[in-house]
């Protein structure tokens, strides 16, 4: 298949998904029960105040009209105003520094887990059935069973309180004070360490288990036998296997990519990391529907774009697609 043909078929799917998601995002929030005005004002107040709020946000109009307005606004990149941060646009909240903090946390954690998980999986899978493999696999399955928020609590307790080597909470210790940029960066990284460790521990088993099983199965493949019979040194055979394995590493990373923006709800909440995950949690507590909707749309956009990037990566990694064999 030619690259542009391939790309066009994937792009068509991207637009379809985003369209469906936008429609879903509108109706889910309008049709499910829940009164947004309750979070903004005391229900004992004058009902006229409630009507005033509904009018301000356009919630008194008929549903089809609201929907049309919503679509027009979406095209203009307008997601409305937050219910709880009065006067702040949703786009400012969702696309601001919070997104930066979360992407920093998650992209570093995903990168660490991809490398550690793939390397450990390759080693254990190549030595499948040995004591080393059993030990590693058992331990990683144990990690796989830990709830991420509990990992976060234990790390916070141990590193923050018992040893006291890392800051317990927050994104930085400097709030609004002028500070040397290097000191600021150092402080930011010190705050980043514990949440990053948490998310990495949470993600490593997913890579490990998949890669280990793939490599263990590849060990019985004819081509590996052939390479062994040919007398190729072990590292050269492993290099061949790595080529197969990298496809899986890419596809697991693509599966994890939605986590890039919202994967750290628990970790960010426990460590007070000022990111999208915590924004999502706070918006739920405050029934801030426009922000929830914004986070939802952002998540979907990331999911779709990540899948597209992964599909493009497959095209170049996996020669079978070019020949049109399919996976």
């Amino acid at each position, binding site marked *: 298949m030619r690259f542009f043909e391939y790309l066009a078929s994937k792009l068509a799917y991207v637009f379809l*998904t985003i369209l*469906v*998601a936008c429609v879903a995002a509108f109706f*889910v*929030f309008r049709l*499910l*029960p*829940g009164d947004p005005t309750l979070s903004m004002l005391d229900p004992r107040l004058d009902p006229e105040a409630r009507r005033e709020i509904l009018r301000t946000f356009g919630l008194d109009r008929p549903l089809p009209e609201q929907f049309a307005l919503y679509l027009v606004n979406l095209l203009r990149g307008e997601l409305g105003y937050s219910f709880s941060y009065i006067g702040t646009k949703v786009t400012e909240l969702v696309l601001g520094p919070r997104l930066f903090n979360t992407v920093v946390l998650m992209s570093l954690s995903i990168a660490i887990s991809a490398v550690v998980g793939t390397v450990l999986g390759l080693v254990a899978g190549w030595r499948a059935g040995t004591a080393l493999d059993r030990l590693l696999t058992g331990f990683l*399955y*144990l990690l*796989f*069973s*830990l*709830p*991420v*928020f*509990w990992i976060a*609590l*234990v790390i*916070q*307790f141990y590193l*923050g*309180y*018992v040893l006291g080597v890392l800051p317990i909470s927050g994104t930085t210790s400097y709030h609004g004070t002028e500070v040397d940029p290097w000191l600021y960066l150092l402080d930011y990284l010190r705050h980043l360490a514990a949440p990053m460790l948490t998310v990495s521990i949470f993600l490593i088993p997913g890579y490990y288990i998949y890669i280990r099983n793939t490599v263990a199965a590849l060990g019985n493949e004819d081509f590996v036998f052939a390479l062994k019979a040919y007398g190729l040194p072990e590292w050269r055979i492993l290099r061949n296997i790595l080529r197969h394995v990298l496809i899986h590493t890419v596809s697991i990373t693509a*599966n994890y990519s*939605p*986590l890039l923006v*919202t*994967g750290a*709800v*628990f970790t960010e*909440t*426990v460590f007070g990391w000022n990111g999208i995950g915590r924004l*999502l*949690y706070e*918006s*739920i*507590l405050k*029934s801030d529907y426009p922000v*929830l909707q914004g*986070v*939802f749309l952002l*998540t*979907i956009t990331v*999911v779709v774009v990540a*899948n597209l990037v992964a599909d493009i990566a497959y095209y170049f990694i996996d020669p079978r697609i070019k020949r049109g064999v399919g996976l």
Partner: protein
Amino acid sequence: MRTSAVYRILRDRNISIGLAAVAFSLAVSLVGIALTPFDPLSIRGPALRPPSDRNLLGTDDLGRDVLAMLSRGTLVSLFIGVVAALVTSAVGILLGIVAGVYGGYVDFAVMRAVEFLLSMPSLVLALILVALLRPSVWNIILVLAVTGWPGITRVVRGYVLQVMSSGYIEAAKALGADAKYIVLRHLVPVSFPVALASIVSSIRSAVLLEAGLSFLGLGDPSTVSLGTVLFYARRAAALASGAWWTFIPAGLMIATIVFGLTMISIGIERYSSAR
């Protein structure tokens, strides 16, 4: 014949380890309830008392007995997990069969929904749905089912497509069986064992997701689950006062259950692929 199949399943190392882990957590929970025959939310001592013979797992910041909350919480977590998995698998199997049997537009629509939901982080969907619905045990189960069915549907649909062209379905068709008969008599019974591994792993995700929602304070306020115990521990800043007993046992309990369920589902998967 039947006993030998059960025997072989129990002899699988993963399945026996998994069953032992789940049985262990259940046993701890039942013994815990027997040792603490009182309302788990009642005050049983001074705040944050370390484990002693008065309170075997100590007390939390309000002086409530941690063992009493932990043992009830385990049962609640398991109950929610199992019921959610049953609802999830009913929906998942049904949609998988419908998609596989009817094909065409129905199949297309179901499978696009499956792909969409599988690529979305289930936590985000669950959080948003919980935010819009009122937090109660049944709403949590509903949310778990909404986020959990696609995995089962995909497995069942694949199997149904494979089976539809097999001899016995052809034979049933040739004998004049209608779609309803084939679905009820042939497809539903075969789909259950095929989906069993996914069903067990959906209990696993349900237990984890419920614990997570309760940990964030979005669980049913009138019941205590394992997540709720951790929610109380965090809210009370138990960590800052070194009260490890308020959160270490509850986390280990979740881990034991989840580890057991993971092992069982791996074992079933291996057993069914080896057959």
